[in-house]
């Protein structure tokens, strides 16, 4: 292949960092990075630069949004043992979500709800 320096200058590492490459192209860059420390260093620098750019766009988020988002996420994630991508919409016969998950969701939904002392239907 070409020498590391001209490889770096080709701009492919920036394309990698910007997410513009196909999986096959990414794999090729990973292979170059594994062979040449200079390429690896340059690639990491590009990724950090874009992390910085992303971080610079941070927004202050309302607390209510945190509860909303986390509740929905916890309600949607599959139980640890189940295969991914199974929506937790109750289908008959589907395994119930793990009790620890349910407990988390409940805790988030009603942070202060005390257990009702043994009455109420």
């Amino acid at each position, binding site marked *: 292949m070409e020498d590391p320096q001209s490889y770096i200058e080709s701009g492919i590492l920036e394309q990698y*960092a910007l*997410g513009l490459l196909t999986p096959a192209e990414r794999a090729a860059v990973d292979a170059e990075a594994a062979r040449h420390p200079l390429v690896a260093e340059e690639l990491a620098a590009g990724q950090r*630069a874009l992390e910085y750019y992303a971080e*610079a*766009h*941070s927004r202050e*988020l309302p607390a209510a949004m945190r509860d909303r988002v986390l509740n929905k996420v916890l309600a949607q*994630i599959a139980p640890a043992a189940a295969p*991914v991508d199974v929506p937790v919409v109750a289908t008959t016969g589907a395994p119930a979500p793990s009790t620890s998950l349910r407990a988390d969701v409940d805790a988030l939904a009603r942070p202060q709800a005390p257990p009702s002392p043994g009455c109420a239907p």
Partner: protein
Amino acid sequence: MSDTLPISLPTASEEDLVRRLKARDESALTLFYDRYASALFGVISRIVKDDDTAEDVLQEALVKIWNAFPAYDAEKGRLFTWVLNICRNLAIDKIRSRQYRVGTRTQGLDDSLAAQRMPAAETFRPEHIGLQEVVQTLVPEQRQIIDLLYFGGYTQSEVAEELKLPLGTVKTRARTAIKLLGKLIR
């Protein structure tokens, strides 16, 4: 400008977070949210340009991150880069399904370009000191190209075509811009 900018987490915390997510510890999602949500939401909302949609995308992204986490390989890249790419891809898919399918791709780009021309304060109301540094560091031509590539989902060729610039110029500006951003970190 001595204000501290939390660019990267202390390595130990990131490692701890990764370990707990790998162990399928659901409570780590809360920790994850507290660490990353403001940056992820910032990026997503910059792409979809609507806070309600951005919240939906963030939620989808968290579910996806959780489900895909077994595939995350810390050897191959940092956690933040990995999750940023998941969020960007979901957000870009969202605007494509909304605008691009209907008609011309050009329409979407025009919107992006119009957004670039707006004064920064109106575009994203920077709440973060880092953005001021970015604005001071990159010339508008560089920032426009990075934004189209990173937030707009365009390839370098598409940017070149739309901005009527040689591809080489687009590549050079992107490369220079990333280099300049990298210098801000130290």
